[in-house]
């Protein structure tokens, strides 16, 4: 059973492939496409790099399909908003793939203000034998042309080109934090701090506002939207999370403006854990539906929670990511780490969840066995193709040999973005400007 093999392999058997170092730019988003054949990364410089899994080769069975660079393009450029005298960063906040419908691949990428639809297509033939120009493009002297011929398509080296097909702009006053493609494959939504807009993929000059939480008086603002996602199967349902730790599920059939939620998920605060930072650490940084559509996963600063859509009062499961930081919240507030937005992901079968932490650690939780593991994405601490060693952070006085104490954690090395292949045990982990891809060990 796939699930059993997942849980068996989860703790000790992750092989490491190459380590792809993108050039000095910090990776800001990572996303597999729906088949797992392609992996896209976006960076702070506005570039998108797409990796493709190579076909498995019978000659080298131990090298299960590795990911190689397939296409690189500049998705967004820095812009200047003249009206407000503000610079608009080109950093790619999110990438979402569209389901594949023909030979070309489509993805949506967004920065703070503009969403773009990119088409990535291959070209492996080109026309040769033009009448009016040479093969190298120079115009031929018309007087030398004596006969007419039909150009023919001849094979050429594979070229992958990315072209922007749609630009969805001027719909957001605040910074876009999420995009989500609807299961109807016709619409998608873009979310900023206060509003959610619904777009048709074909229409760029109009969008519909479906959620607006901006108060009439901005001084009364106490809550913002932090993430949103469409349900994987029900095209009328979506959720959005807030900075106060709540999730609202909305049904677009109920009304045009979904300010009133259909369901409201919030866990009552634990009074024994109350501190000045309770609200900040409850702010949800990521929300993801399970592949089945039955569950919802949310990430706040210290925990990952799995919610059952049928139970609004409290989460089904809560996993502590790095509870040892609870006593350090004041310093983490001071150095701004408390505002870090970690993402979380499901594996293909929804049995394991993964999220990042500091010191280039990332954590996996098996929902069935309740076991968890901490792994490290680091070139220094593991060799290529070596099995990753589980790590441990020690909180008490006595530190064992391989443990790391809380005080020696490197808070500048944070793993905010991770992705899991839709059907296999292959994960992509972004550690600042490096991308790590890990696979299951091949027996």
């Amino acid at each position, binding site marked *: 059973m796939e699930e059993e093999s997942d849980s068996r392999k989860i703790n000790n058997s992750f092989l490491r492939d190459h380590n792809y170092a993108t050039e000095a730019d910090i990776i800001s988003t990572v996303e597999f496409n729906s088949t797992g054949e392609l992996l896209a990364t976006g960076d702070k410089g506005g570039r998108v790099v797409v990796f493709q899994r190579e076909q498995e080769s019978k000659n080298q069975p131990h090298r299960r399909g590795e990911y190689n660079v397939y296409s690189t393009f500049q998705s967004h450029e820095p812009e200047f908003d003249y009206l407000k005298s503000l610079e608009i960063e080109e950093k790619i906040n999110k990438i979402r793939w569209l389901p594949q419908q023909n030979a070309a691949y489509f993805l949506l990428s967004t920065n703070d203000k503009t969403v773009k639809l990119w088409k990535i297509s291959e070209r492996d033939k080109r026309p040769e034998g033009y009448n009016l120009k040479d093969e190298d493009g120079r115009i031929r002297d018309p007087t030398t042309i004596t006969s007419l011929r039909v150009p023919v398509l001849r094979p050429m080296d594979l070229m992958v080109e990315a072209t922007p097909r749609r630009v969805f702009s001027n719909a957001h006053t605040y910074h876009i934090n999420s995009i989500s493609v609807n299961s109807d494959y016709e619409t998608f939504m873009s979310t900023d*701090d206060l509003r959610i807009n619904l777009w048709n993929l074909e229409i760029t000059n109009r969008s519909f506002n479906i959620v607006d939480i901006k108060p009439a008086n901005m*001084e009364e603002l106490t809550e913002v939207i932090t993430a949103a996602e469409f349900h994987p199967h029900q095209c009328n349902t979506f959720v959005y999370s807030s900075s106060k730790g709540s999730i609202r599920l909305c049904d677009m059939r109920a009304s045009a403006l979904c300010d009133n939620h259909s369901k409201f998920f919030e866990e009552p605060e634990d009074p024994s854990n109350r501190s000045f930072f309770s609200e900040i650490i409850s702010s949800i940084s990521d929300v993801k539906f399970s592949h089945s559509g039955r569950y919802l996963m949310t990430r706040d600063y210290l925990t990952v929670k799995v919610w059952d859509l049928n139970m609004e009062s409290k989460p089904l499961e809560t996993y502590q990511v790095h509870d040892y930081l609870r006593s350090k919240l004041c310093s983490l507030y001071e150095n701004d780490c408390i505002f870090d937005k970690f993402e979380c992901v499901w594996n293909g079968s929804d049995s394991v969840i993964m999220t990042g932490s500091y010191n280039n650690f990332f954590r996996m939780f098996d929902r069935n066995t309740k076991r968890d593991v901490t792994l490290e994405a680091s070139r220094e601490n593991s060799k290529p193709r070596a099995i990753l060693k589980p790590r441990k952070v020690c909180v008490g006085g006595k530190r064992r040999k391989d443990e790391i104490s809380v005080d020696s954690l490197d808070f500048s090395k944070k793993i905010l973005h991770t992705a899991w292949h839709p059907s296999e045990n292959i994960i992509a982990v972004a550690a600042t400007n490096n991308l790590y891809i890990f696979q299951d060990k091949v027996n």
Partner: protein
Amino acid sequence: MVAKGQKRKLHREDEGGGSAWESQLQSVLDISMDKFHRDQALVEPCLLRSVLINNTLRQVQSEVRAQVESLSAVKTKNQIGLLPEPSFPRSSPSAEHTPLFSLNNENMEDDFMAWTSEEDFSLSSAISAILKDLDTVIDASQGPCASQRAPLSSVENLTQYQSGLRTERMSDMASSIKTEAMCPGCPQDVALDKLLLDIDTSVFEPEVNLLQGFSVTADDLAKYLPSLSKSASASSSSSLVSHGQATWEIQEIEHVMDILMRTYPQS
């Protein structure tokens, strides 16, 4: 004044771990204000961050207010007769407020009209009222200005809360409160210092860089305020009205202004 000296020791049993909580309160307040001001300097602060910092500041604010209210509630229980000598606190300015409060402790007479208790009560209520108005919207006529002005912008808020300073004996207490405030080194000053920082919540418009603080320097204040006498003066009230929007009772303005000016060594 919110005391961190003698008086607080008395109530420490009630609070349990009070000093640790206080020091964290102070750190959170310091850090939050620092971040708040830094974000003000940015052209486009991150909205999520601003909201979270602001909510934290509000929480600190309400905790402090609760603290002040509980202290003043305790004080009104311990009504004491005290010589209403203005000179009394002056005799030992460096001893801060201890003379005053030690007398509180000694004399447990239930005299509702006692000076000290009323002083403290009025002071606490002044602080509470100031804190209430830290959320008040300041007129957008004040343009964006440097964050150093922010502490004194709460002066502008005073126009709207003057009803909080409502005891009859306010005028008589002005001088004694003034002298109370005359200790720059008081830990109470630090608390009040922070308490009176304008926690301005009207900063969320990214399109408009609104720092709704009023550009008032201590020098300006000194110019507009008459010497701290008890006599009502039409000129001073009118000059204040020129800045503010409401009418005042001059004594109330005077002593609160004095507290502010004494606790702020500079603008």
